[in-house]
C-alpha cells in the first residue's frame, strides 16, 4: 500500500482507522468490529466510491469521517491536519463545513414544515456569518443553480413536499455546496431514487467534481453506478478493505475473491447470465469478537490454511491496486467466481 503521506496532493487520508462498538449486557460483553484498521486516501477533485454489502462498515466510515463517531483507534487527516487535534467549537464547525454529508433518504433529511430556503439559510448563517442577508440569498441561488434546481429563486420558496425525490436530493447537495466543501460525504445518495432519476444525480456528482473542484466519497452498494462516476473504488468486506484501486483497473482484473463474487452478482441485461446456481449462500461474516484469519474464508472456494490463521493485510498487487488476500498475494491468478 502506498503511504498517502508521501504522495502529496491528498485531501483526506486515514491511518488504521478503527471503530468498535460494545454490545451485549454487562455480563456478556462483546465487541462489534464495525471498521477495522482502514487506511484510505482521497485526492483532490476525486470521486472515490466505497462499496460493500450492508454491515460491511461503509456507513460507519462515513460517520467517522463526518466526525459523528469518535474512532476507537487510528487517525483521520484532512490536508495533513489530524482530526483528533480539532477541539474547539469553531474548528469543529469549520471541519463540518469542509466535509459535509449528504444523506440517503431525501424524504427524511429535509424539514417538511419549512420552505427549502430555510435549511440552506441556516447553514449559511452558521457557517458563513460574514455574509449579509442579500449575499446569503445570492449564495443560495448560486448553489441551487449549480445543482440544476432552476429557477433557483422560485425553487427556494417551495416546500419539500412540492419537490420530487430527485430534486430533494439535489437540495441536499446544494446545502453541502453552500458550505464551500472540500469533500462531500455522500451516503447512498441515489439508492432511494427511481432508476430514471439516478443517472441525473450521478451526473451531478461528476459535474460538481469537474466544475466546483470538490471531492466526493460516494458510498454505495451499486457497483455499476460506482463505475459510472468514481475515479477510485474501495471494496469493503466485514469491516476491512478487501480491495482498492483505480475503478477500471479494479473492475477489469479484480484480485479479491469477494470482489469477484460481487461483480458476478451484478445483473446485466445486456449480457447472458454468467453464473448459475453455484453462487454462495451468503453467510454473513462474523464481526462480533472476530478471530484472526480472513473474514471471507467461509464463503471463499479458494481458502487455504493460512486464511484460517492469519488476517490478510492489503498488499499492492498492481500499480496502485491493493488486495487483502493470501491467495492473490502468492501470485496465483484468482478466479473464484464469475
Amino acid at each position: 500500500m502506498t503511504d498517502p503521506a508521501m504522495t502529496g496532493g491528498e485531501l483526506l487520508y486515514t491511518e488504521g482507522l478503527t471503530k468498535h462498538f460494545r454490545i451485549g449486557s454487562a455480563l456478556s460483553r462483546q465487541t462489534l468490529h464495525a471498521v477495522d484498521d482502514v487506511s484510505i486516501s482521497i485526492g483532490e477533485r476525486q470521486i472515490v466510491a466505497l462499496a460493500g454489502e450492508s454491515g460491511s462498515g461503509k456507513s460507519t466510515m462515513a460517520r467517522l469521517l463526518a466526525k459523528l463517531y469518535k474512532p476507537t483507534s487510528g487517525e483521520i487527516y484532512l490536508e495533513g491536519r489530524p482530526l483528533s487535534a480539532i477541539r474547539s467549537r469553531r474548528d469543529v464547525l469549520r471541519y463540518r463545513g469542509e466535509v459535509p454529508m449528504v444523506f440517503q433518504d431525501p424524504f427524511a433529511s429535509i424539514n417538511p414544515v419549512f420552505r427549502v430556503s430555510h435549511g440552506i439559510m441556516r447553514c449559511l448563517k452558521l457557517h458563513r456569518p460574514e455574509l449579509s442577508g442579500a449575499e446569503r440569498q445570492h449564495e443560495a441561488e448560486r448553489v441551487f443553480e449549480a445543482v440544476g434546481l432552476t429557477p433557483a429563486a422560485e425553487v427556494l420558496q417551495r416546500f419539500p413536499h412540492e419537490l420530487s425525490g430527485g430534486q430533494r436530493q439535489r437540495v441536499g447537495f446544494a446545502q453541502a455546496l453552500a458550505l464551500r466543501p472540500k469533500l462531500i460525504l455522500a451516503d447512498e445518495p441515489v439508492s432511494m431514487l427511481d432508476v430514471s432519476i439516478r443517472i441525473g444525480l450521478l451526473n451531478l456528482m461528476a459535474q460538481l467534481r469537474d466544475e466546483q473542484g470538490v471531492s466526493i466519497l460516494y458510498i454505495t452498494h451499486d457497483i455499476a453506478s460506482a463505475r459510472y462516476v468514481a475515479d477510485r473504488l474501495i471494496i469493503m468486506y466485514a469491516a476491512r478493505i478487501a480491495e482498492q484501486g483505480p475503478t477500471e483497473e479494479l473492475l477489469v482484473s479484480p484480485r479479491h475473491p469477494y470482489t469477484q463474487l460481487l461483480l458476478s452478482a451484478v445483473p446485466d441485461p445486456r449480457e447472458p447470465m454468467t453464473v448459475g446456481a453455484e453462487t454462495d449462500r451468503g453467510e454473513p461474516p462474523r464481526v462480533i469478537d472476530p478471530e484472526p484469519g480472513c473474514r471471507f474464508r467461509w464463503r471463499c472456494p479458494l481458502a487455504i490454511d493460512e486464511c484460517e490463521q492469519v488476517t490478510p493485510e492489503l498488499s499492492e498487487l498492481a500499480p496502485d491496486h491493493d488486495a487483502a488476500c493470501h491467495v492473490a498475494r502468492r501470485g496465483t491468478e484468482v478466479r473464484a467466481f464469475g
Partner: protein
Amino acid sequence: MTAGPVLEVRDLAVEYATERGTVRAVDGVSFDLDAGEFIGIVGESGCGKSTLLFAIAQLLAPPAAVTGGSVVFRGENMVGLTDRQLASVRWRDLSVVMQSAMNALNPVKTIAAQFKDAMRAHGVTSKEEVAARSAEVLRMVGIDPVHLKSYPHQLSGGMRQRSMIAMALLLTPELVIMDEPTSALDVVAQRSLMVQIKELQEQLGFAVIFVTHDMSLVSHFSDRLMVMYAGRVDEFGATRQVFDSPLHPYTIGLTEAFPSIRGPRVHLTGIPGSPPNLASLPPGCRFAPRCPKVMDRCRQESPELYQVNGTLVRCFLHAEEGGGDD
C-alpha cells in the same frame, strides 16, 4: 398444470379517494398469466405497480378500491369476494411475498409458529404433518430447519426473506405474487435469492408475478415483462425482446438509464423530468412531457396499446405497424 391462464386481469382500475377527488392509480390494465409463467412488472415509484399487485391479491384497503374490471383467478372473479371467501384462497392457491419481511413476519412468534398458523387456517392440523412440511419448505429455500425455532430478529435479512418465500410455498399455491422481495438485500444475496426463486418455480410449477423497480433484476428470470407508467401498461412483451428491442421511448429510456459494469464507459442521460402527478395528468400521452420523440399528436390524444411483433406498446410511433389491441 391446468390448461389456460391461471389469472385473467381485465380492464382493472383502482382509485384512491383523496381530499381533492379521486386519483386513478391503475387504469385499464389487462393481462393473462399462464400456469407456471413468470411475469415481471417494472416501473417507477407511483406508477401503480404495487397497487396493481394489491388489487390482484385483493389486499387493497380504503381509501383505495377497485372501481372497474375483473381479476379472474382459476375461473373465479376475485373482485367482490368476501373476506371469508378470500381467506380460503389465500396461502392455499395464491400467496403474497411482501417487500419487507421484517414487517411481514410476526416478531414475537417463532418461524414454526407462524408456519403452523397458516397451515391450520387451511385445515392442516396434524402436528407431524405441520412439522414435516415446515421443515421441508425451509430446506427448499436453503435454510436449515433448526431455524424453525428462531424468531425473525435472529435471522439475517436474506434468511427472513427466504423464510417468507418458504411460508408462501407451504400449501403449494398456483400463484405467488412478489412485491420487491429482494430490494432490501445486497447484490450478492439478491442474485442468489433470484436464482432460488427461479429454481423453485421450475421445480414446483407455480406462476409468479414479480414487481420491481429494477428491470435489470428480472432480465434473466421473467418470461414476459410489463412496463408500467403512470398507472398504465406502456409496453408488454417477451422479456428478452423488451430488453433487446424496446419500443416505447420510456422503456428505451429505462434500458439506457443503467450504467453497466462491463463494456465501454458511456455517458448516460437518464430520463429528464419526473413522472406525472396522477391527480393532474397531462392531456394525451402521459409520457409526452418527458418524451424525446414527442409529436404534436401525443399532446392531444392518448395512444392505445398497439401490437408490434407480439409486443404491446402504447405509443403513436408504432400506431401504423400494429393494429389497436386495447
